[in-house]
């Protein structure tokens, strides 16, 4: 240790009355208060109900390696040699959050990114704040606390530096992992100052950087772990290996609500390498196992083979009547007649009877299954006095809740190691597969790895809702919209939690009611649509079909009004009337128009194109972000080739421009899969699809040229994992119409007949 630092440290110790062998007497209550306060500011006045204490729990002590000297919050671990370990509290599944959030800490801390290692935090909301990762909320919720954690650490390091330099704090600043004395340019490394910095209280209200001072925020930073990926060393939920670990494969009842009638285990138990056959019964929790039968063996392959030979009989139960073809046709009928009123403003009937023209259309979409490349997988080890989980997950907290309920233990006694997920898209928020691994582990009294087959993944999902929407609108002489009637029918996610729900509740129609188009004369209705399978969040959720209906119908209206789509959309925004909050609405209009203009400009929409080509455009506001897409297609008979996609985004202050761009490229691919090809079909209550041959997600030959244009904004940052998906389908449908005159209103456009 630098002798000046040592000296300062000794001086400090001498000044302390208590036992000086404890190096980090941080005032926890103060930092607790500090964080509570800042969290309530970050969340617009709503206390989020968690605190981020300084290093005070045994948990952190355990995590910190011996040489970590400075640990002002759960996220920051600075060693004496200057190595900086930053924990990411939110779950990583490819969206880049474990680069984005730690880079905000490092930026405010003036840390050198080259010295940073990022690790995924275990499930511990006390220490890391809310960790359940969905709704594109990570950045919205954690950007401010992460910056403050970094800024607080920097201030503490500067105070330590000033002590050593024997000068005022005002004379010191931090830069790139050093604290520097302005007066004489003396420098001390962060590592050297770590022990001393640990002795300052965590500042309550650290000063944050201004935008022009950012080093990492708003720049293109490489993903922290991509070096591991290309060498095959990045480990996922599927990759955990423990001594004595056994392998399991599982089969579920094909129909929701069905039960096990019988299973003939004898032959399978004779097979070499088979250890046990375990029956799994559901518990009362929406994210618990549906129930199934698992085979445990010495390796996954024996388990899978034995499972295939197992004779299982199921009682299918009442949902065996579910056939999606008929169900969708019924949804269409239900939206093409009056349904249950949700919201009414003005007088739609009067607007319709006084109109110059009326347009109506019905849109539909099928169930979707997330199908991340890594199927559901985890390792669980249940012992008498502990339960440890290694899982690809979006929700460590729900794992804790479900396993606590199942085992009759406290949630805090369930240890969850959050593994990198090989894609998730909403599926891994619901960790039924972890519950199953726990049941098996408990029964065989050993650590167990359960990997679902691709077939089980497709057939035992939490599916995106099958849906139908019907819109009617009236236009005046100038082609302005005067009235809007919007009916939707789909089984909603709420059906998971509320049995017997027969239609989507009012809040599930929020995106219709609060759409920035904000019509004066407006009516929304929800149609009959009971659920016959589990419905879940799928990347972009309801914005997929709301974006499709709004975006396509606007194009149909533009055509009817004889205006070009961009002019028409601008007119709609200009004529919209604020519903509740005037200021917020004005902002929505302004930002929507800005992304529209940006996408339009880059795409060249409106220019002459060769015959058979067309450009379509759509804007959608979801998850607090604004995205416009312009899709350029070439249509030749049934052959639809997407050439270019210009994607304009406004998500406030961008954290990582390269990460943002990647999210949009990915959203285009997922948008294209669901617009053109993918649909989960049910027959007699069971899913018909089984693997990638009959659930044909997009492949490389379809990849268009995607260009991403980011609005430079100082607004609060918002997420991008989901918002890019919604505008693709309507922009594509509009492009095909522009190219060929054919209007597609049903997704997917080219369904496989399965």
């Amino acid at each position, binding site marked *: 240790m630098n002798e000046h630092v040592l000296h300062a440290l000794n001086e400090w110790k001498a000044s302390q009355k208590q036992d000086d062998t404890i190096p980090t007497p941080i005032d926890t209550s103060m930092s607790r208060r500090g964080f509570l306060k800042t969290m309530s500011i970050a969340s617009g006045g709503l206390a989020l109900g968690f605190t981020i204490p300084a290093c005070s729990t045994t948990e952190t002590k355990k995590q910190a390696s011996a040489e970590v000297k400075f640990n002002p919050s759960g996220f920051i671990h600075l060693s004496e040699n200057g190595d900086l370990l930053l924990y990411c509290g939110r779950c990583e*599944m*490819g*969206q*880049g959050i474990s680069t984005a959030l730690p880079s905000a800490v490092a930026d405010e801390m003036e840390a050198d990114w080259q010295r940073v290692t990022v690790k995924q935090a275990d499930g511990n909301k006390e220490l890391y704040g809310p960790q359940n990762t969905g709704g594109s909320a990570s950045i919205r919720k954690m950007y401010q606390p992460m910056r403050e954690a970094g800024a607080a650490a920097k201030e503490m390091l500067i105070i330590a530096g000033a002590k050593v330099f024997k000068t005022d704090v005002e004379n010191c600043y931090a830069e790139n992992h050093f604290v520097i004395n302005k007066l004489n340019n003396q420098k001390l490394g962060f590592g050297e100052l770590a022990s001393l910095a640990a002795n300052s209280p965590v500042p309550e209200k650290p000063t944050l950087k201004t935008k022009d001072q950012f080093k990492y925020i708003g720049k*293109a930073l*490489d*993903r922290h*772990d*991509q*070096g*591991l*990926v*290309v*060498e*095959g*060393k*990045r480990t*996922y939920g*599927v*990759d955990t*290996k423990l001594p004595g670990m056994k*392998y399991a494969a599982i089969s579920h009842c094909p129909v929701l609500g069905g039960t096990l009638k019988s299973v003939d285990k004898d032959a399978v138990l004779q097979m*070499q*390498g088979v250890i046990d056959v375990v029956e799994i019964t559901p518990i009362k929790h929406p994210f618990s196992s549906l129930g199934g039968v698992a085979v445990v063996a010495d*390796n*996954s*392959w024996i388990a*899978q083979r034995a499972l295939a030979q197992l004779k299982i009989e199921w009682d299918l139960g009442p949902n065996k009547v579910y056939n999606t073809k008929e169900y969708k046709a019924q949804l269409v009928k239900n939206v093409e007649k009056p349904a249950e009123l949700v919201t009414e403003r003005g007088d739609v009937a009067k607007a319709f009877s006084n109109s110059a023209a009326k347009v109506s259309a019905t849109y539909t979409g099928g169930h979707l299954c997330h*199908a*991340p*490349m*890594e*199927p559901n997988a985890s390792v669980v080890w249940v012992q008498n006095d502990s339960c440890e989980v290694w899982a690809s997950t979006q929700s460590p907290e729900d794992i804790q809740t479900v396993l606590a309920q199942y085992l009759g233990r406290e949630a805090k006694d369930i240890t969850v190691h959050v593994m*990198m*997920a*090989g*894609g*998730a*898209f909403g599926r891994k928020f619901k960790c039924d597969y972890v519950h199953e691994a726990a049941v098996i582990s408990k029964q065989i009294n050993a650590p167990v790895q359960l*990997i679902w087959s*691709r077939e089980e993944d497709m057939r035992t999902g939490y599916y995106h809702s099958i849906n139908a929407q019907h819109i009617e609108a009236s236009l005046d002489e100038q082609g302005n919209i005067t009235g809007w009637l919007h009916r939707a029918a789909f089984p909603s996610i709420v059906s998971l939690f509320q049995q017997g729900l027969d239609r989507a509740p009012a809040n599930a129609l929020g995106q219709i009611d609060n759409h920035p188009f904000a019509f004066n004369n407006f009516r929304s209705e929800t149609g009959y649509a009971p659920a016959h399978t589990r419905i879940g969040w799928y990347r972009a959720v309801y914005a997929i079909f709301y974006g499709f209906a709004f975006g396509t119908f606007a194009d149909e209206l533009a055509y009817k009004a004889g205006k070009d789509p961009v002019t028409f959309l601008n007119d709609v925004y200009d004529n919209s009337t604020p519903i509740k909050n005037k200021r917020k609405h004005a902002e929505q209009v302004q930002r929507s128009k800005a992304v529209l203009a940006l996408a339009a400009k880059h795409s060249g929409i409106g220019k002459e194109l060769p015959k058979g080509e067309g450009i379509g455009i759509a804007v959608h506001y979801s998850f607090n972000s604004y995205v416009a897409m312009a899709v350029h297609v070439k249509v030749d008979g049934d052959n639809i080739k997407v050439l270019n996609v210009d994607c304009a985004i406004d998500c406030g202050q961008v954290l990582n421009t*390269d990460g943002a761009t*990647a999210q949009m*490229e*990915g*959203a*285009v*691919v*997922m948008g294209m899969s669901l617009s053109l090809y993918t649909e989960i079909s049910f027959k007699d209550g069971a899913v018909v699809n089984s*693997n*990638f*041959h009959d659930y044909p*997600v*997009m*492949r*490389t*030959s379809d*990849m268009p*040229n*995607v260009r991403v244009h980011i609005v430079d904004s100082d607004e609060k940052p918002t997420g991008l994992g989901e918002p890019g998906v919604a505008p693709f389908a309507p922009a594509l449908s509009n492009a095909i119409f522009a190219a060929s005159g054919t209007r597609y209103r049903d997704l997917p456009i080219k369904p496989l007949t399965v």
Partner: protein
Amino acid sequence: MAKTININGVEHPIDVDENMPLLWFLRDRLEFIGTKFGCGSGLCGACTVHVDGQATRSCIIPISALAGKSITTIEGLSADGDHPLQKAWLEHNVPQCGYCQAGQIMNAASFLATNDKPTDEDIDNAMQGNICRCGTYQRIKKAIKSVAYDLAKEV
């Protein structure tokens, strides 16, 4: 003498049921976890390895067919992660979740070894069997092209 299989330069005895697909021999028997399971049916390419240099889906090839052959997995593609494709993957920031990428890289490496001046269509045809659900195709293509371009310059 038990039959053996050469994996990344090391001989391993085949001490499992001979019908076991190579994927599970790698992952569960040897604990080489860089090779991934995605579909188990030859449909996604996540499990791609080289068998005597040829890209092969390890999930559908039984170990019995591989006695005496040389297998290369992502762990053995290069000594220090310095295969031109691995470098290009970093240069173009390809991975999102990264789960499919070992298979993508192995597939591309075997293809480029036989075609160092690929057209866009060649790349599409060669890479069509490798799914990336995160949607990194645009960057994969750029990365492959950059390597092909460098190879072409060398000749």
